[in-house]
């Protein structure tokens, strides 16, 4: 049998492997199943949401009102809510996260570096409902009292959700940022120091530019996590429908309650929608849009982190 394989493998090879090993078959099957799950889900969501696309068309995406009992379905305020909350989270978490990544990767000695990294990664392991409860017990009330001057209606605000998310996406940004910086070859830093650059200058002009793709990816993957998070935001955002800001760039909506794509899906409305073709399609459509947006961000992040950086001049 072995001889036969060797013969089949050709003269040059020492020991040809069987063409179909059990392990190869199994791993192919698993890979295909994983990919099929993704596309199966997308197809299922697309198929189930067909009625709403047929009836509302583009106004489903661009409509500013959602009153399910009147069969008015427009998701724009929820898209706004998702983007606003994620943007607040990134504005807060990106500088802190990237700063921490630089500190951990460039300044800490190796022994401490691992400890700090594990500590920050533990933050990622805290279940999101715990963050939600902390938000409801403390953050909501602190912001409600602290922003008293601006007279928020209650502690349920986009801002509360954004700050909570910032803490939640911090580990993603720190740990991926650190990885990106570590991927820059050490000899480049040595060369820069040899040329007389200070440590700070080396980081600024050598490490950071070369790790740029990876750092952007870290932020984008953090953004994807922020967009997809549900329970924690659910408990502090107020879940108020139809909150389309009159002036898009005003900061007022930030201290008002709102709704995101995920909090809408996490609420009780999905149970009412069940069995009603159009309403159900509208809810599933939200899931489809959410999946596509988060998928796009994740893909972009992965692509940027893998892309070959042009050699720093």
């Amino acid at each position, binding site marked *: 049998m072995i001889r036969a394989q060797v013969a089949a493998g050709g003269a040059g090879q020492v020991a040809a492997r069987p063409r179909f090993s059990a392990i190869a078959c199994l791993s192919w099957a698993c890979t295909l*199943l994983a990919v*099929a*799950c993704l596309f*199966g889900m997308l*197809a299922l969501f697309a198929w189930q949401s067909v009625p709403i696309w047929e009836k509302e068309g583009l106004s489903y995406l661009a409509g500013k009102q959602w*009153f399910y*009992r*009147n069969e008015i379905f427009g998701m724009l305020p929820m898209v706004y809510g998702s983007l606003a909350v994620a943007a607040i989270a990134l504005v807060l978490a990106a500088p802190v996260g990237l700063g921490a990544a630089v500190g951990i990767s460039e300044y800490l000695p190796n022994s401490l570096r691992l400890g700090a990294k594990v500590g920050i990664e533990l933050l990622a392991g805290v279940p999101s409902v715990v963050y939600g409860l902390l938000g*409801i*017990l403390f953050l*909501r*009330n602190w912001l*409600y009292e602290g922003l008293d001057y601006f007279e928020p*209606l*209650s*502690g*349920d605000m986009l801002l509360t959700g954004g700050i909570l998310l910032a803490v939640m996406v911090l580990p993603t940004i720190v740990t991926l940022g650190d990885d990106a910086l570590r991927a820059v070859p050490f000899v480049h830093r040595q060369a820069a120091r040899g040329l007389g650059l200070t440590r700070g200058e080396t980081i600024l002009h050598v490490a950071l530019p070369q790790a740029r793709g990876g750092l952007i990816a870290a932020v984008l993957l953090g953004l994807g996590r922020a967009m997809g998070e549900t329970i924690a935001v659910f*408990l502090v955002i*107020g*879940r*108020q*429908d*139809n*909150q389309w800001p009159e002036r898009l760039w005003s900061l007022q909506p930030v201290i008002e*309650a709102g709704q995101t794509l995920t909090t809408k899906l996490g*609420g*009780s*409305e*999905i*149970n*009412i929608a*069940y*069995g009603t073709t159009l309403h159900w399609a509208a809810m599933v459509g939200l899931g489809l849009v959410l999946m596509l947006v988060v998928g796009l961000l994740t893909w972009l992040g992965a692509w940027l982190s893998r892309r070959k950086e042009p050699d720093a001049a």
Partner: protein
Amino acid sequence: MRILTVLFALGFTAVALRAEALKINGSTTVNLPVAEAAEDLRAEKEMEIQVDTQGGSSGGISSAGEGRVQIGMISKPLADEDKAKYPDANLTATQIGEDAVAIVVSPDVWESGVHAISKEQAQGIYESRIKNWKELGGEDRRIVFFNKEPGRGTWEVFANWAYGDHKKAPPASFPEVGGNEETRNKVSSTRGAMSQLSSSWADGSQVYALAIKEGDEIIEATPANIAGHKYAMSRPLNLVTRGEPGGQAKVFVDYMLSEPGQKLMVKHGYLSMAMLKADAEPAP
């Protein structure tokens, strides 16, 4: 696609075959005594019971209707439209007690002298025509109305009262609250706040229950008024099963109706079936 469906189906069957646990889901109001009863039964009969509160009453109906749980908890009557959604499930409700929905306010509103509300005033607030507590005899302060999510039993009972039929309630967009814990926490920590909440959760320190004004009469949610349905937002607490309860579900439902189970209802501030029958006056 078809292969995927088959795989999913196989997966679910495997889970269903494995799981012998009695699964219960639904209303956070009914959850309190049920969760405690589950603990008793785990200890006494070594039953495996999982109790969850996903989606409130409508979550209870849908999970029982789809067969994901054996018992759904609902804090409202089981309506014909609920049954119609799951025609094959033959959903059946067993009442285990009685409760009421209260309109609760934060301590500052109560202290400013607002102790009762009429149906017209409730409508006015729900339709955003009344926005200040001044109009209800309180201080000059904005009304912060947290609406119970539609789909919650509490919301449905409130909307049935305010508009005759919850389907006639006008579209409204307010900050929404879900479970009882969330509602009480948010109302008590917000000045000028109001929401709908199970009356047994209105503890008179964190949140206060308003009485209902009918003409000149002020009706409080006392046990006698709830049992006699004089208080308009009285509601049954039900366990929903597919058909008449059988097997483990029957053991559980019977326990809830037995003396220790009924004591748990009273312990959590609800009316037991005996109290309901003793105090009930013939319905008008």
